[in-house]
């Protein structure tokens, strides 16, 4: 019997052990969904009967409470059903998981089924995150198309204001969640442990937990659609969010789950990187991408609890009639705004840092040069992290909560451009005289630098109080953050996908199709959002379903551009899906990269390394003779006496 199971590993799970552990072998995403749904229905019925019905109908806290309970119970039920609590319960009972259980959880010999289980292998989690992120982008992108279709001409017969507001909020938050996880989820989980020479994450079960928490939040978020959407924009400003339809409850439960998920993931990933680097991998030999992901999740670890508090207070307002944000009860909308932006600004760097770090990792490989300055890159990242916690009020210059602080916040905000500039310098310095191998990943570097300069500089305008007084709440802000979020972070991630695709899927990405999609999307992107800057400057407010006809021309341009993005993204997506299924098999190290993930075989075996690696230098020694000290590594590679003519050949071969 055991013989058969060994020979057909894909179909049947390992034979259940006689003890209670056999139980976890029967749990998977389906049992999770079933249990979650059943419990949610029960909770819904019970709570709507038991909770007191409101006397006055103006604030129906009853329905909100029912919704919040139902959604929370769904998530808990789902997690129970998928087996997330088996480990803790066994711990509580003093009967820890056995080695065989752990191995089962790591997805040993389970084929595709392991993607639908509480699997702890970091590579499985990475793929799960990748697919989930792409689904989220798909939904968010579709909503963006609806938004742009509605704005294509004034009069907007397409969506009514209710639908429009609901869709804008959903687009915003879906995109924000997707961008937060798009690098640290797929690549932080799949690549980082291999990059640092570890066999798995520090806490594999927390790793699975973080993914399945996020997964359980997605249906809740999507449930906001039929419940009236998120009619407040993604920032859900109170007290508008106090009086919004039930979709708001879905939103806040989503955020709470998401915050827990990213907290768990953050603690896990930070520990992994701090404690589990290979022998010899000192901090100065640790790849820069590892710095980017770690600082990002660590920043999230302190930032997201604040968001969670903002949402829990909102839940109390909505469900229990608390008055945190209700002025007539002594509350204040400024409390919400402060909590939200205390999270909200660090969050934009949570998004940006790992994406930029991926570019810093990509560039040396595709220019065949060392990273221009590792120290500068680390200093840049550290500076950004440090400052980002002290700039939040630049979103509230005109809120009137503390006009006297506008000056100081302007100072901290503008200072961030210096460390951010350092990262840009490192990218440029690495490109400098490189042998630029223009594959898709490095194209992302070019487009990001183009886009992000625009996004960053317009951020600097906004950080200036008088300018913000004119532009706050206008489409100018919207254009600014699409240039940073999409033009910067998402574009960089597309490069990262192309870069690590061979390692993660064991297939080569179809570059020809991918590049067509990428270029199309980038061109469309610039058309769309340059047009949006124009209408912003002309005074079009954000989040308006029916902008005045003064802005018709700019909006038309933006909408047409958006369709171009949509087409480009579809082509890119096609390249991904098609190559994943039918692409050429990838060699272990298609790009000639030096970091550890390229040294292990593809597909990467369970536990990654047969022998734990030992690191003796950093990973950027392109063109440097092995084990040479610094003076030689910066010396001229060509004979010095042939200086002027010697310069020609390289130049000549390139032009």
């Amino acid at each position, binding site marked *: 019997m055991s013989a058969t199971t060994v020979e057909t590993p894909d179909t049947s799970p390992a034979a259940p052990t006689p003890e209670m552990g056999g139980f976890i072998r029967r749990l998977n995403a389906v049992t999770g969904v079933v249990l979650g749904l059943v419990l949610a229905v029960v909770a819904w019925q019970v709570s709507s009967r038991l909770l007191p019905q409101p006397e006055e109908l103006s604030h129906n806290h009853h329905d909100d409470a029912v919704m919040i309970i139902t959604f929370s119970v769904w998530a808990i039920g789902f997690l129970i059903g998928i087996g997330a609590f088996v480990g803790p319960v066994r711990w509580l009972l003093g009967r820890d998981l056995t080695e065989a259980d752990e*191995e089962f959880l790591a997805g040993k010999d389970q084929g595709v089924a392991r993607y639908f289980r509480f699997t702890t292998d970091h590579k499985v989690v990475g793929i799960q995150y990748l697919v989930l992120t792409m689904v989220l982008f798909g939904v968010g992108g579709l909503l963006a198309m609806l938004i742009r279709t509605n704005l294509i001409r004034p009069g907007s017969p397409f969506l009514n204001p209710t639908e429009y507001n609901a869709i804008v909020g959903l687009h915003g938050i879906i995109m924000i969640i997707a961008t937060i996880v798009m690098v640290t989820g797929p690549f932080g989980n799949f690549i980082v442990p291999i990059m640092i020479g570890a066999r798995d994450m520090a806490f594999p079960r*927390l790793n699975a937990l973080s993914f399945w928490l996020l997964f359980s939040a997605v249906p809740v978020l999507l449930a906001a659609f039929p419940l009236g959407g998120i009619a407040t924009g993604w920032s859900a400003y109170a007290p508008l969010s106090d009086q919004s339809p039930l979709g708001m409850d879905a939103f806040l439960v989503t955020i709470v789950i998401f915050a827990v998920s990213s*907290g768990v993931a953050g603690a896990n990933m930070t520990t992994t990187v701090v404690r589990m680097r290979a022998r010899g991998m000192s901090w100065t030999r640790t790849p820069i991408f590892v710095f980017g992901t770690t600082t990002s999740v660590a920043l999230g670890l302190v930032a997201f609890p*604040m968001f969670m508090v903002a949402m829990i207070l909102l839940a109390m307002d909505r469900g229990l009639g*608390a*008055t945190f944000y209700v002025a007539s*009860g*002594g509350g204040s909308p400024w*409390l919400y705004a402060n909590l939200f932006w205390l999270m909200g600004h660090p969050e934009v760097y949570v998004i940006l840092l790992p994406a930029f770090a991926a570019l810093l990792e990509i560039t040396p490989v595709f220019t065949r040069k060392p990273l221009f300055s590792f120290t500068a890159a680390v200093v840049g990242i550290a500076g950004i992290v440090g400052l980002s916690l002290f700039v939040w009020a630049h979103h509230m210059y005109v809120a009137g909560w503390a006009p006297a602080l506008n000056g100081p916040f302007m100072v901290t905000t503008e200072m961030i451009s210096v460390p951010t500039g350092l990262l840009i310098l490192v990218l440029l310095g690495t490109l400098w005289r490189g042998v630029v191998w223009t594959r898709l990943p490095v194209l992302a570097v070019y487009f990001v630098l183009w886009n992000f300069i625009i996004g960053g500089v317009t951020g600097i305008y906004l950080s200036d109080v008088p300018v913000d007084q004119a532009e706050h709440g206008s489409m100018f802000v919207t254009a600014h953050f699409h240039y940073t979020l999409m033009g910067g972070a998402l574009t960089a991630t597309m490069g990262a996908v192309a870069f690590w695709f061979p390692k993660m899927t064991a297939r080569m990405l179809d570059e020809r199709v991918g590049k067509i999609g990428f270029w199309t999307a980038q061109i469309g992107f610039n058309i769309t959002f340059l047009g949006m800057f124009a209408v912003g400057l002309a005074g079009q407010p954000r989040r308006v379903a029916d902008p005045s006809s003064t802005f018709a021309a700019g909006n038309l341009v933006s909408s047409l551009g958006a369709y171009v993005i949509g087409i480009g993204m579809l082509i890119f997506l096609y390249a991904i899906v098609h190559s994943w299924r039918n692409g050429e098999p990838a060699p272990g190290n298609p790009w000639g990269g030096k970091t550890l993930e390229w040294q292990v075989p593809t597909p990467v075996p369970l536990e990654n390394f*047969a022998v734990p690696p030992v690191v003796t230098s950093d990973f950027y020694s392109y063109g440097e003779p092995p084990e040479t000290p610094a003076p030689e590594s910066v010396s001229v590679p060509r004979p010095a006496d042939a200086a002027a003519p010697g310069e020609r050949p390289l130049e000549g071969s390139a032009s």
Partner: protein
Amino acid sequence: MTAAATHVVVHDSPEVVWRRQRLGVLLLIVADVAFVLSLVFAYLYLRGLDTEGGWLPKDGPQPAGAGLGWLIAAVMATSWLCYRWAESSARAGRRELVVLGVLAAVVLVVADLALQIYQMVTAGFVVADGSYESAFMALTGYHVVHLTLTFLLGVGIWNRARLGLVDADTSHLRLVGFWWTWVVLSAVLTAAVTSLTASPHAGS
């Protein structure tokens, strides 16, 4: 090929595992610290703003007395002392004392839970009464959450100590100890913050 494919279970040394687990737990605590500080911020900010005199208006309910809050913190601190005692007993290898110490700590947590709930129920106001009431209930309510988690962890440790799982490897005992310490600190913080009631602007 076969050699490479063979799955070798590699065990890290207990010291390595301990350092890893300690960092992980401390980081999770950091996240919780951020959470508690945000609640404290909410309380103090609303108190400082006193929007439309709505923080503890004269015609509204009276604030909860600070005494009970401090008592709750004190009970939690006692529980923590018991837990510390259990930890030092574990170092001395006295299993019975570990079991006893953790049990005492857990019982005190339950007592604290009862006190906390008593305080919330007998406060003379409900969440919906106004901003002070909301902020008070959020802080104390979160202490309830803390205590519930601590209770579960404590029961787990007690059970494991009973089964002898703590004898050789005290790491879980010590990890839960970190959490216990933080819960005490947060209880003290909660007591201190909720003892500040009247808004500084209330007079003017």
